[in-house]
């Protein structure tokens, strides 16, 4: 099947209104209460305890496409590992598909699959077709059914031309598609996707998002839990989103609901020369200075404002004009998920990750 055609033909998902979802302990697809998780790194006197999760509560309804959005190190992957029975929580209770994930891991595993992002697609010596068959066997899928599902996935994820090629001869993009496909060959009730489009080229990421919508539309009981730090992906795909930072879930709502939490003021981003003082902008009536973004390659930095109306914007521009500042660029938009994230977390994803990268570099 041509992928673009598939994308266009993607059936519309019928989503369940959040208020009608069963998010009870036994009725939810995923339910977690008071999850904490600490890791000890190092030994002896140099041992340090890292608190990856600090009391996570989750309720994900059956049939939901649920996103967990947060920066690197926020606790997304730790949460996923606990939900998929790979890790014990330090404290807390977790139920998946109605089963206790700590006491009944096999019952959970029969109903779920996990795809971690990246291009790890199993054994390089197998062909793509053989790989899909092999993974299905770990779930006990009869071979005939496994092969049928494998052929369907080859078509739907654009892997048909590579079906008989060895995995170690595939490009990174095709390996990532195969890695993604293997998560669906057992036809699970709940799929956990940990950064599935991380590092993917634009077309492959688009194909994967299209496939996900189609897969969910085909059976309204199917559930997907997706971690991502791509705002646009979460906004486009997810029925509800949990924003996680420093091991805590700070907000859970629909993308629209999250946006409604911040003021309806229009967002204005003004690009100015590095070093320009911007404090005066905060004193303009109807203007709130939200944040600034770090200097870019062009020697400019961004000033993010919430502006009540045109008059307030004119006031802001007048202040800059009076001070003789050069405006390199100006754009406006409605409040986005990024703005919601900043309002809730206090910083933007890019800033958090830039700081993290800087800290790592200093540590190295």
């Amino acid at each position: 099947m041509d992928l673009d055609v598939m994308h266009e033909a993607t059936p519309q998902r019928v989503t369940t209104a959040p208020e009608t979802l069963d998010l009870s302990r036994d009725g939810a697809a995923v339910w977690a209460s008071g999850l904490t998780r600490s890791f000890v790194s190092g030994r002896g006197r140099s041992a340090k305890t890292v608190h990856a999760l600090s009391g996570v509560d989750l309720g994900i309804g059956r049939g939901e496409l649920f996103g967990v959005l947060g920066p690197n190190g926020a606790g997304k992957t730790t949460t996923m590992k606990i939900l998929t029975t790979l890790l014990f929580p330090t404290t807390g209770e977790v139920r998946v598909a109605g089963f206790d994930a700590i006491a009944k891991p096999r019952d959970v595993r029969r109903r779920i699959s996990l795809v971690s992002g990246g291009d790890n697609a199993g054994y390089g010596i197998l062909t793509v077709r053989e790989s899909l068959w092999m993974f299905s066997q770990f779930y006990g899928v009869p071979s005939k059914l496994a092969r049928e599902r494998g052929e369907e996935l080859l078509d739907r994820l654009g892997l048909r031309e590579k079906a008989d090629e060895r995995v170690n001869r595939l490009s990174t993009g095709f390996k990532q598609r195969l890695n993604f496909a293997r998560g669906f060959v057992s036809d699970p009730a709940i799929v956990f996707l940990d950064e599935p489009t991380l590092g993917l080229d634009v077309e492959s990421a688009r194909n994967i998002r299209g496939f996900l919508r189609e897969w969910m539309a085909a059976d309204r009981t199917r559930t997907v839990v997706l971690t991502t730090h791509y705002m646009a992906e979460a906004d486009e795909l997810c029925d509800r989103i949990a924003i996680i930072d420093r091991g805590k879930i700070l907000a859970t709502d629909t993308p629209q609901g999250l946006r409604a939490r911040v003021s309806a003021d229009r967002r204005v981003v003004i690009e100015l020369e590095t070093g320009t003082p911007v404090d005066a902008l905060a004193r303009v009536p109807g203007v709130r200075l939200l944040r600034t973004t770090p200097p870019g390659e062009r020697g400019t930095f961004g000033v993010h404002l919430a502006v009540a109306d045109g008059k307030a914007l004119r006031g802001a521009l007048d202040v800059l004009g009076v001070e003789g500042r050069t405006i390199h660029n100006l754009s406006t938009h409605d409040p986005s998920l990024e703005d919601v994230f900043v309002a809730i977390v206090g910083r933007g994803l890019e800033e958090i990750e830039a700081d993290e990268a800087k800290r790592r570099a200093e540590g190295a």
Partner: protein
Amino acid sequence: MNRDRFAEDRLEPLRTNLRAAWARAYVRIFAASREPSWILFETIMPVLGMFAYVYVYRALGAPREFETFVVMGGVMMAYWLAVLWSMGTQWFFEKQEGNLEFYLVAPCSRMAILAGMALGGVVMTSMRAGLSLVAGVLLFRTNLMPGEPWLALGVFLLTLGSLYALGMCLASLFLMYGREVWHVSNALAEPMYLVNGLYFPLKALGPWGFAAISTLPLAIGLDAMRQLVLGPVLARGLLPVGTEVALLAASLPVNLGLAVWLLARSERIGKRTGALILRHQ
């Protein structure tokens, strides 16, 4: 959620585990043979090592049965190396490659995956061992026909079973404590040639021979098979064959039970500490 789709009868876990074991064995039996270099490194090179010992014994004018010791030891050495490198270290390398997660999140038993590795490993290694056997018979005219072939086959299979169960134990140990896996495996290879008496009769080790035979399935099995081929006198057997068969039969369930326990324990520790999901821990 449609729970019926996931309802299972009592045999479903067994079916799942058999399918999983076969799928894992498939990788080794069919896919591994796609690399032509395998024939050179896995079959021809090890046989050359065996040749060296045969010529040493010939140069020293040792009795002909010593060549039989070498050929039989060379055959069994192939299995030991496979157990060490393709079973013992396998979980560790799967973790490094990021494949371990595939198995841990699947509903099949980890023992089924190890059984698949073992089955695939036995088939592949038997090709290497078979070549050693053919080389021994054709080039050195070694007589390897046992007096009681069915008993010899039984001893051979018991030895393999116990040996691979030992490999399953090592797999869990390496997974949890395997940062120095390369060094440990290398360190385990050469001394094992010695304590298992791969190229000489175990009796030559004196009391150490008894120590080896009481713990190592390879030592027991090799001594028993040599006795079945050469007779107890020429084979310089350490214990009566019947005793050795009983020891092997006892070691198989012990090693298997230990493997199951170690695997469950390593998974439990791994889930508690995070060691199973962090590649470089």
